[in-house]
Each structure stands twice: as C-alpha cells, then as structure tokens.
C-alpha cells in the first residue's frame, strides 16, 4: 500500500504514537529509509527483512543448513560406510580415488565419517542447548517473577555453579557420572544453565513491573497465566537469540570433552574424537586431524553468525 510510512508505521503491530516520532532524531524520514522500509511490514516480515540485509548472517544460516542437512540425511549423503575398514588404503591423502577427503589410520573414509559425525556432534550440542535453555529459562522465570526466598535459593545455586570455571564444571560432572555421550551432554548442559537463568531473570524482572502485567493482575489473571502468556512469550526472542549463540559454545565444549577422551566413546565418533585420534598422524597425514577440526570451526562460525544476525534482527537491545 503506497501510504505514508510514518502514519501507518507499525513496527510491533501497535500504531506509532506521535511521541515516538518527536523524541528521537531517527524519525526524520530522510535518514530513516531502512527502518521505514521495514516498518511497512508485519513484525515477522520486518524481522526477516532485517535479517536478510545482513550478508554475514545469511552466510551463517547457509552453513548451519548444510550441517543440519548432513546430519539428517547422513545415510543417503555418505558415499561409504563410515566404519568400513579398508586396510589397503590407510591414511590416504585428500583426492584419492574412492576417498575424496582421504582416509584415516584404519582406512575409513573421512568424508563419510565427517557426515555421520555431524549427526553425533549436532545431536549432542543441540540437545544440550535445549536442556540448558528449558531448565535455565524455567529457573529464571520463576525466580524473577516470584522473587523472595525462591529467587534467593535459585540465585545462590547459580552463584555456586558459576564459581567453577566453565570447562571445569563440565569435567566435574564427567568425573561423577563417568565418560560417555549422554553424560557429556548433561555436563555441557549443566554448565550453561546459569547463562539462560540470568538472562531470563533479567528480562522477567523488567516485564513483571510493566503496565500490561499490572493490568493482567488487575483483571484477576492467575500467576501461571501471567507467567506463560505475558512473561514467557516476551522472553521468547531473547531466549532464541541466546540459544543460537550458545550452540556454538556447546559444540566446542562437547567436542573438547570428546577430544580429551571423556565424551563420546568409540565406536561412536564425533568430530572431536576424529580429531583426537588423528593427532598421532599429524606429520604423516595432517588432514586426518585438521579436517574434523575445520568442520567444527566452520559449524561453530555458522551458528555464531546466525546468532549475531538473529540478535540484530529480533532483539537489537542485546547487542554487545
């Protein structure tokens, strides 16, 4: 609709009050072309438009899509059986016939192992993020909303978790539960709970004082209803951004545990274990260790770029 943008500007689906135009110099139409173009659309469309404008975040999204596709369609994409031992071609270099990315010390195809490894790596890190996100959000939500002793107890617990240097806490959990894929996942998840709890608690503290929560309370809405309908829904974009930015760290941490021999155990293998076992052949066949490392690096970079882009598009307040 070719109508004047400022009159219909509905960034949040709410008509722009005249006050908003007056207080900020951003309202001068000449320098506000970008924002104005975005304001014409529905909130979802404007978020998408802001996201698309950022080339780097598109790049990140593509990387993430490729990694996720590799993980989902591993059985169809992988050229060979990732565990098939080929004694005739051990430590084959990149570009060998039949082994596009070479082979490892047992003659297993590296490309196939990377594709299958994506499955384990992403499964562990995405599940760990989901666990940390759900538990952390829940604690932050009830702590920040109810305050009082409940909040004190939660925050002291978080303080204790944060008293451990990040990776040390993960090691402590592994020491108790023993090495393994599932335990590694629990370990890295636990370490990241404080991250979500603190962010969500902060947002909750400001939302609980807002007029619409007062109004909801005024008309007799229950705490549960307010928490879910008003507080939680308003945290969603913040949590999505924090979660995406957190995945990169989860991948690194889970891979580090595997690298130390404390995470995923053979015969299952993720990129961390591949890199770890390839270390012994660093001088003879450097690609055996560096290719999985590169895979981790690129995937983490992808999630970080995607997270940065989502943050700028969804919740610019979170900018560093």
């Amino acid at each position: 609709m070719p109508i004047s943008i400022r009159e219909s500007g509905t960034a949040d689906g709410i008509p722009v009050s005249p006050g908003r135009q007056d207080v900020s110099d951003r309202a001068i139409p000449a320098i506000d072309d970008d924002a104005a173009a975005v304001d014409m659309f529905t909130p979802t469309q404007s978020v998408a438009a802001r996201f698309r404008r950022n080339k780097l975040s598109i790049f990140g999204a593509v990387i993430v899509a490729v990694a996720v596709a590799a993980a989902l369609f591993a059985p169809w994409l992988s050229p060979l059986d990732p565990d098939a031992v080929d004694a005739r071609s051990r430590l084959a270099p990149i570009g060998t016939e039949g082994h596009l990315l070479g082979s490892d010390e047992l003659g297993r195809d590296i490309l196939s192992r990377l594709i299958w490894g994506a499955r384990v790596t992403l499964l562990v890190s995405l599940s760990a993020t989901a666990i940390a996100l759900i538990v952390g959000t829940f604690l932050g939500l009830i702590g920040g909303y109810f305050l009082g002793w409940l909040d004190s107890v939660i925050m002291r617990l978080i303080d204790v978790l944060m008293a451990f240097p990040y990776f040390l806490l993960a090691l402590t959990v592994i020491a108790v539960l023993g090495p393994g894929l599932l335990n590694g996942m629990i370990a890295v998840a636990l370490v990241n709970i404080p991250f979500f709890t603190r962010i969500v608690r902060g947002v909750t503290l400001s939302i609980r004082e807002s007029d619409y929560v007062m109004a909801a309370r005024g008309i007799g809405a229950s705490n549960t209803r307010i928490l879910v309908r008003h507080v939680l829904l308003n945290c969603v974009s913040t949590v999505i951004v924090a979660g995406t930015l957190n995945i990169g760290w989860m991948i690194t941490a889970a891979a580090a545990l595997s690298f130390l021999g404390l995470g995923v155990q053979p015969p299952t293998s993720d990129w961390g274990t591949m890199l770890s076992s390839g270390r012994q052949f660093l001088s003879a066949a450097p690609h055996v260790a560096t290719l999985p490392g590169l895979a981790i690096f690129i995937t983490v970079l992808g999630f970080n770029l995607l997270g940065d882009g989502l943050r700028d598009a969804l919740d610019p307040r979170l900018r560093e």
Partner: protein
Amino acid sequence: MWQYLFKRLLHTIPVLFGVSVLVFGMLHLAPGDPAQILLGPEATADSIAQVREDLGLDKPLVVQYATWMSKMARGDFGRSIVLGREVFPEIWARFKATAILTVTSLIIAVMLGVSAGIVSAVRQYSLFDSIAMLVALAGVSMPLFFTGIVAILAFAMKLRWLPSAGMYSPAGGDLWDLLRHLVLPALTLGTVSAAILARMTRSAMLEIIRQDYVRTARAKGLNERSVIYIHALRNASITIVTVLGMQIGYLLGGSVITEAVFSWPGIGQMMVRAIQARDYPMVQGGVFFVAAMFVFINLLVDVLYAYLDPRIRYR
C-alpha cells in the same frame, strides 16, 4: 569502599560453602560404594571395610562433611589412589605450570584484544577495523584444540621454530627454554579471549566516543590522544574489566584443553588423567583448588571493578 569490600567478602562464604558441598558430594553422587570407588575394582572386602571406617562412611553425611572440610582447610586433601602420594603437594607443584600458562595467556589476550579493539573503534570502518573484526569473529569460533593443532603443525612441524610439547627440554631448563615452550600454548589459549576482548572493547569504545563528555573534551581543545586514552578508555575499562573477569574463568577451564594438546604439566592435565583413572581424591582436590582460586580471583576483579567505577561502591 571498605563497606563494599566487606560485603563482597561475606558473599564469598556461601559460594565457597556451596562449592565444597558439591565437591564433597562428588564421591557420594557417583554410582557405587565410595569405599569401593576409592580402592578400585581389585579391593578386598577387608580393605573396603577398613576404608569405610577410616573415612567414617558409616557416620551421618553431615559429620562426614565436617571431617572432610576441616581436613581440606588444613591442606590435607587426601591421598591419590593411583600415585599413592599426598594430593595437595602434587596439585601445588603443578599449579605453578598452570599459573604460568594462564597468566601469560591473559597478558597476551589483553595486549592483543584491547589494543585491537581501541584501534578498531577509533578507526571504525577502516581496513584495519574490518580485518581485525573478521579475525576476531574467526577467533571466537575456533576451538582451542584445533587452534593448538594448527599451531603445532605450522610452527613446530613445518617451520620447526618452536617445540610442540612440554615445559622444558630434557636437556635445557633455563628461562629461555621455558619461554620457547610457552609461546605456542599461551598464544593458543589466549586467542579466544583476545578475540572476545577485541569485540567488547571496540563496542564499548564506540559507545563512549559518542558521549557528550567526549565531545566536550574535544571541544575544549584536548588532543585526540588524551581524549581517547583518558576520557574514553578509562570509562571503557569498566566493561573491559567485567569481560576480563569472565575470561579468567574461560582461561582456567581452557588451560585443561591446552595442557592436553601441548603436554603442559599443569593441573588440567593431571585432572584429565585422574578422571580417566577414577582417582577421586585427586579430582576432588583439583576441582576444589581451582574453584576456590577462581572465587578469589573473582573477588579481586570485583574489587578492581569497584575501584574503577565509584557507582558500584555506593550501590
């Protein structure tokens, strides 16, 4: 200031208490009988009964905790199952190596990160800024063990400039030898923190450069140098110190991985071995020691923070 210091000091008590409960609980949370765990799979029934009595495992948990804690406080961290030696001297000996590594990394991170951040902010959108921020973005995403392996491959194996493992050569042992061994691990460990510091310093500086008091400083004719270093950097240092405090935790944790990559004889390497061997007294001692250290470092950071930002003191 004193009041703040006192309050902050009080705050460490419940945290340290929580840490100690968690570390104490490790042995009891682990699946299986603690005495059996401590003695390993080949233990006889007699020796298990002996250990149960020695540790007071038949007594209530509270009593066990109190006994354990009073021993820990006196530096008696128990005996390593695998090595058979006292845990505390072992940790103390290795702590030196870890401290050298992390402190050097921290210095590298601050020097590289903060200066790159300042230059990037002052020359926003310049070529330097673009390159520095691209490198920082890559640095943030680069896993430590991969950086370490690439560094070994390039500087130790291909170029043969530096040693790839250990702290001293078998023959050598002087400071120069130590420094040569230190370069790769310290740079590896420092990269991620340097990258994060560069990004944070840049954004903090950019925000401050646009403040009114910076405009005033320029308007009254101060040269650009004083404006940047006295007016802008001093205020940005509050953000920098906050980030730095968080980075120390990252460095202490990351030293575990770095030590594994470069066979650096520190606490991290010791702990990974202890976890693999289920050497609980060693793990408990190591975790408790590093966590307690971290609590005190955080205390120091907060004090520094209060010194830099008077608003904190009066909150």
